[in-house]
């Protein structure tokens, strides 16, 4: 069986024949050594539509322009709005501002507000953590790898455990993620990110120099998952910045009652649920007065 070091340094192989695991032994071994962050039956639902600042965490993420606050469906005094980025955030290098302002202007006119989830595009890192509002994230832990699955898409990130980064990387939307456990925390380090994604839903660009560290930790007795993010990108940002996303755990899946197990990942193929773009998008119809 494979034993995991809490320090995430190397693996120790012991006595069982190569190619075999005990039916429950391997899982029990994981339970004893590493935090149980979930499975394909344990949905993590986003608490926040976008990144939030970490209290006392220094420079934080791009958020909504205070003059044009973002309201999702079902919120806000006048119904939903499109995201307009706060361009005064000091993390932003000057060259980012024109493109972000152009995107802001399109959103302000109600014409366009790109989101990776809506476009069936990868969310990138750390954008993966805020992509899509409703579809939960699932974490599947294996002996050599952890995968993060966003039900919407689906989108999948691979985190290779206890190995160093490759020396030569071809940039890709989710880059190369390596990880290890530090006690109760899964620490993920990602480089090799292509620059064709945004870091958030406010359409904040990044370069291929981006380096992201994420720390996944159960809180509130295991009912919640907190992910703290640190982003460095000297090509895009004036300084490293931090952000947080929090997830709420899903329904217990202890029993099977002859139907789909509660919490089981659903099929949510992105291509099935897209709107045709290329034209002015009408706002979601909202009644200006109750009809009853």
């Amino acid at each position, binding site marked *: 069986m494979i034993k995991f070091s809490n320090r995430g340094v190397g693996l120790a192989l012991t006595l069982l024949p190569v*190619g075999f695991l005990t039916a429950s032994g391997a899982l029990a071994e994981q339970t004893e050594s590493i935090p149980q962050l979930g499975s*394909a039956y344990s949905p993590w639902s986003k608490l926040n539509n976008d990144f939030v600042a970490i209290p006392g965490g220094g420079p934080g993420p791009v958020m909504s322009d205070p003059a044009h606050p973002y309201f999702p469906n079902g919120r806000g005094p006048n119904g939903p709005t499109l995201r307009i980025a706060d361009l005064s955030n000091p993390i932003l290098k000057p060259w980012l501002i024109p493109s972000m302002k152009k995107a802001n202007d399109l959103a302000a006119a109600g014409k366009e507000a790109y*989101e990776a989830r809506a476009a069936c595009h990868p969310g990138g890192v750390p954008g993966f953590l805020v992509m899509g509002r409703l579809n939960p994230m699932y974490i599947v832990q294996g002996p050599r790898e952890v995968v993060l*699955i966003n039900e919407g898409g689906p989108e999948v990130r691979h985190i290779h455990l206890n190995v160093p980064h490759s020396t030569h990387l071809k940039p890709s939307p989710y880059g190369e993620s390596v990880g290890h456990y530090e006690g109760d925390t899964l620490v993920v380090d990602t480089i090799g990110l292509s620059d064709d994604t945004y870091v958030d839903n406010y359409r904040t660009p990044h370069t291929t120099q981006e380096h992201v560290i994420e720390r996944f930790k159960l809180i509130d007795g295991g009912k919640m998952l907190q992910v703290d993010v640190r982003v460095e990108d000297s090509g895009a940002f004036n300084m490293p910045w931090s952000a947080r996303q929090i997830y709420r755990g899903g329904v217990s899946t202890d029993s099977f009652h002859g139907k789909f197990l509660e919490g089981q990942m659903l099929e949510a193929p*992105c*291509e099935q649920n897209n709107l045709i773009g290329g034209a002015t998008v009408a706002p*979601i119809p909202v009644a200006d007065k109750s009809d009853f």
Partner: protein
Amino acid sequence: MKSRQNLWFAAALAAVAVAPASAAPGASIPDFSGIWAHQWDPGFEALDSGPTALVNLARLPDGRGNVAQLVGDYHNPILKPEAAETVRKLGEQSKMHVGFHNPRNQCWPMGLPFVLSSDGMEIFDRGDHLTIIYRLDHQVRTVRMNAAHPAKPVPSYYGDSVGHYEGDTLVIDTIALKPGPFAMLDWFGTPQTPALHVVERYRLLDYDEAKDGIRRAGRDNTINPAGTPPVMDFDYRGKWLQLLFTVDDPNVFTTPWSATVTYAPQLPPPKGLGVWPEYVCAENPYKYGTEEDVHVPTAKVSDF
């Protein structure tokens, strides 16, 4: 006829009904963890005898299948006449260098058994369920272990999959497969209906056993050029993984048929990439049948 088909089907399902807890407590189960790869397309390895998968009638000068032209063998006796005609027509289109839609090139869920042709796959065993991830466009399946199909399963692109271990073999049984807009069983356009039933059997093999799968793969498939991810070592002397799958759809086939897919472990650096090379389908959509590349529908604003 329909009621007789239903009876036959019910019997077939009962024959593969899952026995709970096939692995006794403390019993060993095979370790299928890791990234498994095969480096050929379209991917299925037809058996040497018995009812088996369609092969490509379009051949290269050296006799190997030509993946650039997908002409499924519509003479294969497994095909009912209507299905044979569908495959023949699509083959004619391909011979004219005009491609046809399939779930892979249209970025849709590939379903079963089409997704089994994916060149990379990974199985995560969590005891009461498996999560299987396929490299091409992030396809994901969940298999409930040691469980029974529900009495009225909800049809979906990947259906309802239940699995169990029979000694050294992982057996997965899938029903309730919903045909999508581009649904087909294989790269040749073999159709499917909601009656489709797929049984998969995964087993680790020694190299000497795996060589037969490699031989059949090379006979009918196109081996991707060296260095094309995922990279596999054809001379790997450790454990290989072979999938033997059986397909039945009484509306399409005259008989159940079987084929294999043989995998080697994805190589670590420096020979292989060591990681899972990303394949983002939405970045590479093509429209076949016209000169125009398809535009993957995208929303300019989120609808939620």
